[in-house]
Every structure is written in C-alpha cells, then in structure tokens.
C-alpha cells in the first residue's frame, strides 16, 4: 500500500517536473537543434533561392576550390591565433595585478577596464572605425609620438584592416575575461601564497606554480568561449571594415551572410560553409580540453 502511494507521488513529481521544463525543451529543440539538422540537409542541396535539388557532397567539394572561402577561413584563423592569446594573457596579467591586497584604487581600475563590456558590438565598431579613419585620431596620435612617419591606411590596407579589427576586439573583451580570472583568483586560499613566500618562492614562481594551475579550469573556459566567439566573428567585421578591402578582412560568418542575403541566395552552399564553423568549434574545443587534461 505504502509502496504504491510512494509510486504515485513519484509519478506526480515526475509529471510536474515535465510541466516546468517542457517549454524550454521544445523551444531549444525547435530553434537550435531542428535548424541544425535542417542546415545539414540543406547543405546537401544546391540551387538558387528555393529551387533546391539534392546534390550530395558537391557543396563540400566546392569549398575546396572557393578562393573567397579560403580567404575567409584564413582570416578567421588569423584573428583566432593572434587575438585570443594576446587577450587571454593581457586579461590574466591585469587580473593578477588587480588581485594585490595592497593596491590602491583597485575598484576604479577594475571598473574602468571592465567598462568596454557595456558597449554594443555595433556601437564600439563604429567608434573604432572613426578613430582609425585615415586622417583620424589614431594616425594623428602615432604621428605626434613619432611612431610612424606617414599615416597608416587602416581601412584600405589588407594588413592594417585586420590589425584594426584585432585591436578593437581586444579592447572590447579583455575586461570581460579579466573578471572571470579575478573571480577565480579570489577563490584561491591566500595561505597558499603565504606558505610559498615563507619558502622563498619569487612572484614569478608563485604565478607559474600556484596561480596558473589553480586557474586552469577558468582559463580553459575562457579560451573555449573566446575561440567560439572569434570563429563566429561578424558584427565587428561588418561595421569596421565591411570585410574589405576586397575580402582582406572578411570572416566565415560574414561570407555565410553574403552568400545567403547579399548575393543571389545560395542557401545550400551557405549551409555547407556554416558547417565548417561547427566542425572547427567542435575540433578546437576537443583539442583544448585534451591539452588542458594532459597537463593535469
């Protein structure tokens, strides 16, 4: 009798559990997982607009000979390889400086460096576009400091267009990563450092032997989110350089957008391109997990 009663109570609890969670489950399936499958099916089709015919893997084969696609992948990887490490190291360095108990004005520094996070990606992109105009403030500043002898063509040089974007992203996201490290540092027991100091370990030694290993899970987390964010880079490129000059600063996301909504829509091919981002995110995350796991 009592077992039976317990059984119905459990069943009731189970039903209530479904009631609370069902809306979110349906929404995520409908607007993330279902479209993901749709995108894959679409990637096996080809044609303009809605006249899609099944073509097998030919969209994926086309990727191999598409120069714009190669350019977009190359650029995206450049942003990733150059920007993410710079930003992570900078954020780590700043957070270690800020974690000093005796530091004066800590609150001010922390708030100031975090402040870029409140801007929208479009807003700060436009701000950077104006700062890096050909006769703009940055050129004026660098000329006055005698760092350069003639103005840099930030927007019209393939090299400097990418540099501008890397500077902009680093400005926007360093503070964001910093607060993760600060939160992590605050969880480290100060007595560990005190003990290390008694043992005569230098500040550098303390950083590499205590701080870095203890922050590893958070560094892994921020590296994965930054990697995923950089692989999807879109707003900045659209609004700072427009992908130009030519396609010199374009990214995979922007190329997908152009293929779908700017040129004659080719949804099948765009979907195939989009799956390369999925593949890259999965592979890079696995590698990062592996690297972090091996060093344990």
């Amino acid at each position, binding site marked *: 009798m009592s077992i039976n009663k317990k059984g119905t109570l459990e069943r009731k609890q189970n039903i209530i559990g479904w009631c*609370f969670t069902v809306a979110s489950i349906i929404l995520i399936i409908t607007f993330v997982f279902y479209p993901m499958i*749709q995108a894959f099916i679409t990637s096996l089709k080809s044609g303009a607009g809605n006249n899609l015919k099944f073509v097998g893997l030919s969209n994926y084969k086309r990727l191999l000979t598409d120069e714009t696609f190669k350019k977009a992948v190359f650029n995206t990887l450049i942003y990733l390889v150059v920007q993410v490490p710079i930003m992570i190291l900078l954020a780590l360095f700043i957070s270690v400086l800020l974690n000093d108990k005796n530091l004066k004005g800590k609150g001010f*520094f922390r708030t100031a460096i*975090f402040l870029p996070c409140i801007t929208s990606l479009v*807003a700060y992109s436009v*701000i950077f576009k104006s700062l890096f105009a050909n006769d703009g403030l940055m*050129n004026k500043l660098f000329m006055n400091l005698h760092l350069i002898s003639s103005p840099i063509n930030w927007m019209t040089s393939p090299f400097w267009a990418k540099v501008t974007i890397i500077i902009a992203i680093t400005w926007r996201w360093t503070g964001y990563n910093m607060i993760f490290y600060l939160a992590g540092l605050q969880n480290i027991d100060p007595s560990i450092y005190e003990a290390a100091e008694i043992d005569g370990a230098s500040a550098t030694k303390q950083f590499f032997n205590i701080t870095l290993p203890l922050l590893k899970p958070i560094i892994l987390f921020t590296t994965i989110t930054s990697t995923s964010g950089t692989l999807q880079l879109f707003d900045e490129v659209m609004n700072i350089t427009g992908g130009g000059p030519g396609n010199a600063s374009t990214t995979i996301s922007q190329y*997908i957008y152009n293929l779908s*909504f700017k040129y004659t829509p080719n949804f099948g091919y765009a979907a195939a391109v*989009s799956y390369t981002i999925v593949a890259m995110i999965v592979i890079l995350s696995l590698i990062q997990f592996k690297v972090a796991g091996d060093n344990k």
Partner: protein
Amino acid sequence: MKKTTNAFKYIFLSIASLISIFPFLWMIISMTNKSVEVTKGSLIPGTHLFENMRNLFTNNLHFANSLVNSAKISVITTVIALVVSSLAGYGFEIYRNKVRDRIFSILLLSMMVPFASLMVPLFRMFRNFKIFGLNTTASVIIPSIATAFLIFFFRQNTKSFPKDLLEAGRIDGLSELQLFTRIYVPTMKSTYAAAAIITFMSSWNNYMWPLITLQTASKRTAPLIISTMSSSYTPDYGMIMAGIVITTLPTALVFFLMQKQFVEGMLGSVKG
C-alpha cells in the same frame, strides 16, 4: 626593486584604464562636433550637439522609432526569457530524474552551436510562419527566449536554494506552482536581477538576427540603424556618435546602478 615594480603596476593599470575609458570620452566629445572634426580626430568639444541631435531625430532615419522597437523587443524578450528559463532551471534541479538530467546535458550542447549555422535555416523557417514571420517583432523575440545559458544559470543558482523552504510550503498546503511563485521567486531576487541584466543587454545589443529578419526600416532596432548610418558613403559621425551615446545609456545606467548583479550575470555560473 619593490618600488619600481610597484610603480610599474600603477603605470600599467593607469594606461590600461585610460585605453578602456578613452573611446567613451571620444564618443561624448564627438557627439558635440561636426563630422569633419570627428574624422580629423578633434579632442575639443564643439558646439554641434543640438544640431547632431536634431539631425538624428529628424533625418527620416527612423532613429526614434528604432529606440522604441529596441526597447519593446528587449523588455518582452527579457520578461518571457526569465519566466521560461527560471521555470526550467528550477524544474531540472528540484524535480531531478535521470531522463531529464540527460535532456539537460543535451540542451547544454546547444551553447556550442554557432549562430552562423542557424541563420539560413531560421530565415527559411520564419519565412513560412504566417503570424510571426519575417519582419515582425515576434520573429526577433521568439528564437532568443530559451537559451541553454540562462537555464544553466538558474539551475546552478537553484543548487544553493534552501530546499527546506519548499517542504515547509508543502506542509502549509501550497501547490507546486505556488511553491515556485511564492517561495522560490521572492528568494531568488538577485539571481533574477543578474539574469535580467544579461538578457536585456544581449537583446538590446543584438545585431545579426535582427539584421536578417527585420527588413523594413521602420521596424529596425537601434544597432541596425546605427550600422546603416555608418555604412553610408559619407557618414555623419557627429550625428552617429550622438546616436551611439543614446543607445549606450541604458546599459551604462544598469551597469552603474547594479554593478554587482551585472558582473554576476556576466560570470554566469562559473563563479565558485
């Protein structure tokens, strides 16, 4: 030796702070200048503030409209997202069972899905919808209601929620839904605040999906209008900066008034 490292620390942090703050000063100075002065890098406040504002609101750019659209979309998204995600986070944690735990981990995988791979299928999906199809406010809101991030955030915070309160409520004869609305929601106010801030921010600043779905200028959100203004052949930077300052104000206000919850929301569930 110690003194020089200390001095280095302060100099480094001051420079980092200056670089971080400078673009904010720049947009405030620039909104008082003519466009030519902005592109020439003038750091002296000018007298064109009112002219820039007037241009911004009267130039047939739908800027005022876009602020209303943005506000509408962000507020509705935030309210619905908080209801749906907190119900889910609570449900997954309080009524735990194996099947739902597995579904939960599958839902978490959706955080890895890049939006770039969703834009084409979502566009085609919404094109077929009759009531909330492309170019409607609803089409912007619906895909961003349920995010694994927010559900995870609520579930993590529910872990530290005192469950005895629920038992006490059950003894008092509250229904399961009342336990949620009368006990859980009031206790979790600061979690809701943090979640509201982060959701409002991402909705207010959202660019890619609104760019795809909102096709008529009068329906567009503020980031889209600013982007359009700056991509014209001769962008009026004084006016654009005025627009940027206005669209940054809401998030700046929230940040300075509720810094703690703001940072908590950003950190999500990583802390501790």
